[in-house]
């Protein structure tokens, strides 16, 4: 027994040392990796804090400190992605008073993890500027964004209802990401001060609308917001009887588009081409009269003069027109005849007592001629 014990003991103790040594070494190596990683993470954090401080210093010289403000909830998801989020809110403190706010925001550009510090002046509600802290965007691509693009986010008034910037074509994702940062900062700010976001009160007034002949569901609406004139392409949905936005000659924000479509829907065309034959130049126009739509068939010659005007289906109150009180001529018969004779709507007067219906008939001819001229 004793003879076996000694060699067994020697072998066992060697094995035990080996196994224990390997196990402990494994744990120590893991621990070391963790500690070193923690150090690296801390270093990154320190570098981020340095970047945030320098961002604050750019706009507030000699501020005392950045103070993390954890009281108010932050936007954790934006545009349906939790990769767009406000990471932190810092107060920029100078002489024990908050002089500025710094939002640290992460968004997805072409790649994930674009981090930007946005500095806000709370009293004037201005975005003073910003600093890109972590940039994972492909550099050759990101560098295509020039200073004019970046400069549009400096000194931006957040109170302005129209808070919109133009993304850069071909660098759409990266440029949109920066724009998103500004929008998020703005929304976070208004959330923090518990106020509604200023809704854009863009006022568009209707100027004119022309129907396209190549695609009669499309209208060009000319609108004005007081400072500029916008030509917007709108599509008319016959089943919903509603106009929807297609395109515009100027870049519009979502709020502006909303306002424009709303105005257009209030000014729906009272007369609308429902069919058009380009060979015979015969227009079928539906125009709303006193008692509902009147279908007019209008033929134009090559110069856009009316050569034929007949009225088709209509639900007109003939009993009124043929009543004893009514002494004027029947507009359904007379107005088309007058227009046919002059070839134009100019100078055609409405018939007293049937003004709405007369106007509808004149308008029908006008729509046909306008669209023809526009198509030319």
């Amino acid at each position, binding site marked *: 027994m004793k003879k076996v014990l000694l060699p067994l003991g020697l072998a066992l103790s*060697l094995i035990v040392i080996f196994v224990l*040594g390997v196990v*402990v070494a494994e744990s*120590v190596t893991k621990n*070391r990796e963790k500690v*070193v990683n923690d150090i690296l993470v801390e270093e990154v954090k320190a570098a981020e804090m340095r970047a945030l401080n320098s961002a604050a210093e750019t706009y507030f010289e000699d501020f005392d400190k950045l103070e993390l403000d954890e009281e108010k909830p932050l936007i954790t998801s934006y545009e349906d992605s939790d990769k767009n989020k406000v990471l932190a809110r810092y107060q920029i403190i100078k002489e024990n008073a908050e002089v500025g706010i710094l939002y640290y925001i992460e968004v997805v550009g072409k790649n994930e993890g674009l981090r930007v510090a946005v500095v806000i002046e709370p009293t004037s509600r201005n975005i003073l500027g910003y600093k890109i802290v972590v940039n994972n965007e492909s550099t050759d691509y990101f560098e295509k964004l020039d200073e004019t693009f970046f400069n549009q986010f400096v000194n931006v008034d957040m109170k302005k209802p129209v808070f919109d910037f133009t993304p850069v074509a071909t660098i759409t994702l990266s440029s949109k990401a920066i724009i998103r940062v500004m929008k998020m900062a703005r929304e976070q700010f208004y959330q923090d001060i518990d106020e509604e976001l200023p809704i854009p009160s863009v006022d568009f007034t209707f100027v004119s609308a022309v129907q396209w002949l190549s695609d009669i569901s499309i209208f060009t609406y000319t609108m004005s917001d007081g400072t500029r004139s916008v030509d917007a392409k709108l599509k008319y949905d016959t089943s919903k009887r509603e106009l929807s936005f297609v395109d515009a000659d100027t870049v519009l924000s979502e709020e502006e588009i909303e306002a424009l479509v709303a105005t257009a829907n209030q000014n729906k065309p009272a007369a609308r081409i429902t069919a058009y034959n380009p060979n015979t130049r015969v227009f079928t126009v539906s125009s709303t009269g006193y008692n509902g739509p009147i279908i007019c068939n209008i033929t134009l010659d090559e110069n856009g003069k009316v050569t034929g005007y007949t009225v088709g289906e209509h639900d007109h109150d003939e009993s009124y027109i043929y009543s004893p009180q009514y002494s004027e001529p029947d507009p359904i018969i007379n107005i088309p005849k007058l227009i046919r004779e002059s070839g134009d709507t100019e100078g055609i007067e409405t018939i007293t007592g049937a003004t709405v219906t007369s106007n509808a008939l004149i308008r029908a001819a006008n729509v046909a001629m306008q669209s023809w001229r526009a198509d030319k």
Partner: protein
Amino acid sequence: MANKFSLGTGPFLRASDEKIITTKRMMNDVVICLVPIILFAWFKNGILPYIKLDNVSFLAMVWPLLFVLVGGLTSMLLEAVYFYCFKNIRTFKALLNEVYLSYAVIPGLLLALVLPLYTPIWVLMIGCLFANIIFKMLFGGFGYNIFNPALLAYVIVITAFSFAIPTNATSGTTFNPYEDYYLETGVTPLTNYTMKQDDKLVNIGADYDTLVKPYGSLANFAIGTIPGAMGETSAILCILAFIYLVIRKTISWQVPVIYVGTVFVITLIVGLVNGQGLWYPVFNVLSGGLLFGAVFMATEPVTTPRSPNGKIIFALGLGVLTCLFRLVGSFPEGVATSILFMCLFTPLIDRFAAKLRITKDPWKIAVKYAAIAILFIAIAGYTVFKTSPAQNKPASEQDRIAITEVLE
């Protein structure tokens, strides 16, 4: 002839000292001197990171101690196995006695102290196997080995298992986590020498800011709070150990003093040629394993020359070769290789030195010493020449353009 010079096995003791200085006491002294060095290494690599950093586990804190313990224990167990299998020693008590008398623990301890701290444990154990069994017992056991077992095992392990020894900062090197934390550089002081630029060693002439500043000051080198293998960083403890061992007559003062002195003088000349100050030789003496090697390895009684003049020749050779390997070679450290290299010549030096001592003709003595001196001066001169600014000037602008063009 055999009657004239019988070269027995070391260590040799003066008859007058024999009563008080025994092999047992000598080896005990070595272990006693290693204890503060191990404790300091534990403090620097285990306790300091544990105090200064979060998340350092208890095991990681005691790891340096465990590493040394595994080295020592493995060595003892391996020799016990050897004695059991090949020497037919079958009782526990006798085995313990044999292992104690053959000082099995020392190679394991030394090996653990010179290997990088995060060397895998199996590499350390294989190193112990090489040291105790192959380089010591197979040569005939304590007193018969021709190389320092720990040193030879170190060189074998560091070259053969270099793939397993971690080199980057995250997985571990000779850097402990705290050093990773506060040092901005990722290399040990001497590694700066091997950094090549444009295919030339330019850092031989690197200034104080590159070589010393990243690690604090030369005081840090003296205390030992610089990255490096566990045993080698603390210069002060090595010097204290040296004083203790000399007082106890365990080692003679010649080899360490002349070895370090030679390195000092040669690096002083190299420094002067490169326009460096006095800090340059001091840096070279304090960094790397020079002091540890000089005190514990180069004085090993078995594998180094025994005659006093042989010791001087041996030590001079060490100094000259260390400078050559360190400053001209491609490895940062030159201590281990130069000691092993000089151990090769130990019998030769002993014979040569002994013959010289009985030579009557002073001219013959002078000529022979002069020959050796010329050899050493030639090697040192070559080192100085190779490290002179003229040889190491950075590639000129035009060369650089040519290099970039080729690369493109």
